[in-house]
């Protein structure tokens, strides 16, 4: 490869007119040998084994599970488990639908509210804006546990316990990190565009809705993905607020599968692993299609990519 490249006869000028000597060899820091590959293969294998094991269990027959005869590579291929999970005593179909409802409405709420608030902090001038923004940033430091108990009380006073509302409604009031992301993103859009739109007769809301909002799409998709994944996987929220089975999202429902089996009886691990796959697969798919937007988010936050 590059180690074989013969010494160049003349330095070639690269863009910007800056001549730079071509490197004849890979720098030591980037050289890879059998050890590099060996380590990478071993590490990848370690990271992959649990995933293969999940698939193996998910495809096991009930008999294999109840006798504990599990193996890392699949022995049975009971694809019917993927249908059987919907025929248990628990409403797994509803779990899925509930998860989608909660995650999607939360994402909508965050996108709408964060874009509005972030735009205001990036563009509009008002007395007190700086200290307010400082407060926004400071709120990132407050752990959720502090507000958990009072919020529970508020939502129980509103009669919202055992509904999706305590999970969804707060998302419509934006959060500090998303505001920060939008603000950083909008700051990079040239202000002249606002001016031009203003001359064309657009008011502040018009500039926001017709000009800036469409340009914000990448960061809003990043925020939507971030919210979707966070709410899809959220366990503590539903655990506190949801009691009835038909309102549980999948993250809580799958866990519930393990606890509903009778004492001294092996939980249906094959079905639980099918549930875990249902829980995980959408996240992998979203990541696959959303990678570049997640990168946008890292970019906006400087070196700050929070998961």
């Amino acid at each position, binding site marked *: 490869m590059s180690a074989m490249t013969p010494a160049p006869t003349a330095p070639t000028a690269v863009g910007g007119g800056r001549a730079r000597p071509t490197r004849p060899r890979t720098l030591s820091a980037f050289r890879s040998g059998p050890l590099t590959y060996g380590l990478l293969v071993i*590490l*990848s294998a370690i990271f992959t084994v649990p*995933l293969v094991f999940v698939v193996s269990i998910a495809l096991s027959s009930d008999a294999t599970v109840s006798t504990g005869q599990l193996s890392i590579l699949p022995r049975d291929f009971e694809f019917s488990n993927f249908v059987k999970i919907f025929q248990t005593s628990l409403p797994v179909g509803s779990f899925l639908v509930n998860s989608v409802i909660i995650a999607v409405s939360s994402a909508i709420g965050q996108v709408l509210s964060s874009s509005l608030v972030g735009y205001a902090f990036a563009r509009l*001038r008002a007395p007190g804006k700086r200290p307010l923004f400082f407060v926004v940033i400071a709120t990132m430091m407050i752990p959720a546990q502090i507000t958990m108990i*009072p919020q529970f009380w508020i939502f129980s006073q509103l009669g919202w316990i055992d509904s999706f509302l305590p999970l969804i409604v707060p998302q419509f*009031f934006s959060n500090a990190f998303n*505001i920060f992301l939008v603000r950083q993103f909008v700051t990079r859009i040239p202000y002249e565009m606002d001016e031009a739109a203003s001359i064309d007769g657009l008011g502040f809301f018009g500039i926001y809705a017709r000009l800036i909002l469409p340009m914000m799409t990448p960061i809003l998709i990043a925020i939507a993905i971030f919210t979707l994944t966070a709410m899809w996987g959220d366990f503590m929220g539903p655990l506190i607020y949801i009691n009835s089975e038909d309102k549980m999202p999948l993250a809580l429902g799958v866990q519930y599968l393990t606890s509903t089996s009778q004492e001294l009886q092996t939980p249906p691990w094959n079905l639980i692993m099918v549930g875990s796959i249902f829980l995980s697969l959408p996240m992998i798919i979203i990541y696959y299609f959303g990678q570049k937007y997640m990168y946008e988010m890292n970019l906006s936050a400087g070196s700050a990519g929070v998961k």
Partner: protein
Amino acid sequence: MTSTALRPPTAGRAASRGAAPPRQKLTPHRRKEALTFYLFISPWVIGFVVFLLGPMLFSIYLSFTEWDSFTAPVWVGLDNYITLLTDDPIFLRVMGNTAYYSLISVPLGMVVSLFIANLLNKKVRFRKLFRTLVYLPHLIPIVAVALIFQMVFAPEAGPLNQALALIGIDGPNWLRDADWVKPALILMSLWQAGGGTILLLAGMNGIPKELYEAAEIDGASGFRQFWSVTFPQLTPVIFFNLIMGIIGSFQVFAQVFILTGGGPDNASQMAVPMLFDEAFRFYHMGYGSAIAWILFVVIMAFTALAFATSGRWVFYESEVRQ
């Protein structure tokens, strides 16, 4: 309006990137702008007051009371805090467990992710495949991770003990053994350490090649180049990961709740699961609030400590961020 406004938008876009907005607008206009600002940020203001500031103040008050959430709170002064710190049978142990988990899993996870990132930063074939395999566990929701590892840690059929058996080690009953349950939770957190590699790789990408060339000319070995160029240049990213890691891991909940329920004999009970039990199982809302505030102070203390020592080892240079 002004001459700036009359410029064609295309010219303006290229010419004055990042220029400050002009400030010669009329006062009624500015007033309207300010009003619009307050209107636009009102979702955040309402959310801040209703879901954060109000609850925070209420939570401080509650931490000085005894409250079952049904009858009126009873003021008990500092009793909750005093009981927690001197008389609670498990609280200090729980905080110890939490610190043990956090202070081992976070640095260890950073070493693992840095090690992997450095391997992936070399000239390797199938880099994308390796990167995906290492990153994949990070995408799995924590509930699924916990359920998966309940199987991985299974004493006989679990792959972990099977692998240990291959090299002649009789693996422990990870989740039922008071000595091994915390290491088990740490191992599980390491499975998701690949998440950090993406950020580190992006950071490594931004390190100027000239630094390595200079090191190469000075005769530095590959390892030396990593230790003297890569690592110092990455310290800002590592520092960020450290802070976020500490904050996140002190709040560990679902793993403990699902895998061990805090057992055996509270060996794996941690702060947030205990808070959850006190508040939502036993309805000790005041006591739970006091736990939350102690936890907050501890997290802040560790974060402050990380910041205080950062001057000694975090290296900032304008070129690092790209």
